[in-house]
């Protein structure tokens, strides 16, 4: 009789375990589309044995633990690659914005395949065309010094060049403002995520008391937060040996020292952006070395290609203003400059207020058709400048602008190409992780059927034992 009771108990335990396994499979299926989730499974083991009167009896089976399938190496690789991807995405977006701001397009529909002396597509092109049109207008005026319509054209082309430089400068300023706005928004997200990490740390240490590594879903969520955080900023996670299950999230400062952002359940330092650099805000006020993630990417564009483009554009403007004024007003006569002498940046360049179609001159002599000033200004477009000789730029105006435009374009293509590689790497890591720990519907359904059959079999065993006990009890009557 005692053997029957024991068998009944074992069958009941088996039912529980099969039901639990079916529940785990159900949970796996429920998380089919949850990328953060790693499939779980129960480790079944024998519950041991006991010495009974009839000899050694098995105590049945039990669930020793529930585990999930995570690969720490892949998880870390995904976090690290996420930082690279976040940085490159931002670099691509913002360098493409700079290219758009410069607005240099190659439009073949605006040109004809044969030369025409009547075509003039206005001033629809970018700065390159603006520079050409301006100096070509001077070339035109040198051929027709007394032609007032040519003077009108020249003033219009000069105004167009000024407008284009002003516009590009304004657009670049907008890109910069947008970069700062993006950084500030991302800094807030980073601080939210740091708060989440602290919360999860607290939850893990509470849930895993005596059962290290058992808070599977929370750990899945925490890994998801790390991966999300990696999109914004570089960081390292360091386990705390004295407090199993808890971690520190650290970032280095510009001197290479670790600054703790999250310590166990507490955010020691929040991230802050002071307009030029990232600083810790809390137990430390160190300047942080943010080099990847979207924050690193945007900052590198801001301090790199954006700042360089603005500087180069201002150098180009300064050279145009200085050279044209010198050639147009060689005696430096007051009020007779072509460009406003103080407007030497792309944002401030302007025509001299005294310059009108009537006051526009081609000569300093009294001869109406003399053109030495027009020739001098027109010749500037072919002049090769050198910073070694005190100029603001190297090369001709057109070459220098082409360098600016190509420099930005190379940043765009370089970020695009690197991002494509990073995307592939990240997808590959994620695929490898999914291959190991992702949920397969077919697998779970197969397991579900297995657990169902096992459950039916255990129930059948209980039924048989019950019948045996009925028979036995029936003998007593």
């Amino acid at each position, binding site marked *: 009789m005692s053997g029957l009771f024991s068998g009944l108990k074992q069958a009941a335990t088996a039912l529980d375990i099969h039901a639990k396994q079916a529940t785990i499979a159900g949970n796996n299926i429920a998380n*089919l589309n949850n*990328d953060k989730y790693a499939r779980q499974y129960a480790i079944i083991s024998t519950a041991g044995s006991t010495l009974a009167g009839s000899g050694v009896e098995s105590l049945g089976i039990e669930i020793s633990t529930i585990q999930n399938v995570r690969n720490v190496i892949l998880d870390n690789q995904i976090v690290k690659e996420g930082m690279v991807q976040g940085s490159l995405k931002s670099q691509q977006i913002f360098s*493409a914005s700079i*290219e758009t701001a410069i607005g*240099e*397009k*190659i439009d*073949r*529909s605006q*040109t004809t*395949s*044969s*030369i*025409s*002396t009547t075509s003039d597509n206005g001033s629809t092109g970018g700065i*390159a*065309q603006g*520079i*050409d049109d301006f100096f*070509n207008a001077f*070339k*035109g005026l*040198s*051929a*027709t*010094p*007394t032609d007032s319509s040519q003077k009108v054209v020249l003033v219009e082309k000069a105004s167009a060049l000024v407008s284009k430089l002003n516009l590009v400068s304004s657009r670049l300023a907008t890109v910069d403002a947008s970069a700062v706005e993006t950084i500030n928004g991302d800094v807030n997200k980073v601080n939210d995520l740091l708060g989440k990490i602290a919360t999860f740390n607290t939850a893990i240490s509470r849930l895993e008391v005596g059962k290290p590594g058992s808070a599977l879903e929370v750990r899945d969520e925490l890994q998801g937060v790390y991966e999300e955080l990696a999109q914004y900023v570089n960081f390292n996670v360091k386990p705390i040996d004295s407090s199993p299950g808890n971690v520190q999230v650290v970032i280095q400062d510009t001197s290479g020292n670790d600054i703790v952002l999250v310590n166990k359940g507490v955010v020691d330092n929040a991230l802050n952006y002071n307009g030029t650099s990232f600083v810790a805000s809390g137990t430390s006020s160190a300047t942080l070395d943010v080099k990847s993630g979207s924050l690193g990417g945007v900052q590198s564009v801001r301090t790199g290609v954006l700042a360089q483009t603005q500087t180069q554009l201002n150098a180009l403007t300064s050279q145009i203003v200085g050279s044209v004024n010198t050639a147009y007003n060689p005696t430096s006569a007051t009020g007779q400059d072509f460009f406003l002498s103080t407007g030497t940046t792309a944002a401030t360049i302007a025509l001299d207020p005294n310059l009108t179609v009537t006051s526009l001159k081609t*000569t300093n*002599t*009294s*001869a*109406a*058709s*003399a*053109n030495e000033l027009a*020739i001098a200004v*027109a010749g500037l477009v072919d002049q090769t400048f050198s910073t070694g000789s005190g100029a603001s730029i190297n090369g001709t105006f*057109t*070459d220098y602008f*082409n360098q600016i*435009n*190509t420099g*930005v*374009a190379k940043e*765009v293509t370089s970020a*695009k190409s690197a991002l494509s590689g990073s995307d592939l790497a990240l*997808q590959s890591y*994620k*695929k490898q992780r*999914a*291959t*190991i720990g*992702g*949920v*397969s*519907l*077919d697998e779970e*359904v*197969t397991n579900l*059927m297995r657990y169902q059959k096992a459950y039916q079999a255990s129930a059948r065993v209980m039924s048989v034992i019950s019948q045996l006990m009925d028979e036995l009890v029936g003998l007593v009557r």
Partner: protein
Amino acid sequence: MSEIIRAASNTFTTDLQMNLMKLNGRQFQLMAQISSGQRVAVASDDPAAAARAIGYQSLQRDLTQYQKNAQRAENVLNMSVNAIQSLKSTVSRAQEIATVTQSGVSTRNYTDYAKEVNQLLEQAVSSSNSEYLDDPLFAGTATSASPFSTTRDSNGKITAVTYVGNSGSASFSISENAMVDPHTGGAENNKMLTAINNILNLRDALESSNTTAVTSSQTALITSENDIVDSLSTMGAKLMRVQTAKSQNSASYQNLDKSISGDVDADMSQTILELNKIQTAYTAAMQGAARVMSESLMNYIR
């Protein structure tokens, strides 16, 4: 036998989504190339090709301006040649009259010839003060007034002609490395003045029936005619230079256009072929996905 890889259910959809997005992006890119006819529209499409194309386009704009300048130079030269030829005809006729009258004609005939030469003088002054777009052709750079200024008596008859232009020169670019001043120089303009004065002297000699003076005028007119022919040769040579520059500008422009086309334009047949390839892959991916995704073990659980 290859390794059996465990495939998570959402790996398939994630991969499919990513591949469809890539194919879609490429289709969009190819469609944009076909519709614009350009492989490169902004510098980041191909920085090196774009840099070259922008440089070439800049040269094309320069050439267009040179061509406009050359056209103006050609117009000025043609007008100048016409005016000088007119002056030459005038001088030739005056010389003929001098030849006819130097051996002596009747007083009445002298008077008639003098009247004709006076008209020739008016014509010579008028030709020499010819303008192009309101600018005198033979004034040097002093174009604010007619260069050959006349003094007239109470009857309106020209009594003296002086040159009030200058010897200034205003060259301008007509090609990448050529400049030209389409106007006559100071020496030519002075020779024109001499020719006019020679006609004036002939008229005065005829009016006074002075055969000696007529003879010396005839000699001077021959010299003037030769000088005018020299001027015409100079202007003709300039005209040829300008026309050569125009041809070079046009040829350079077309060569640059070919270079730009090579860097920037899309190879249509290649692009369309690639679009077909991508479209086939896109359709196949969607059809395959529809088949695979519709099947699952779930369909067989009863």
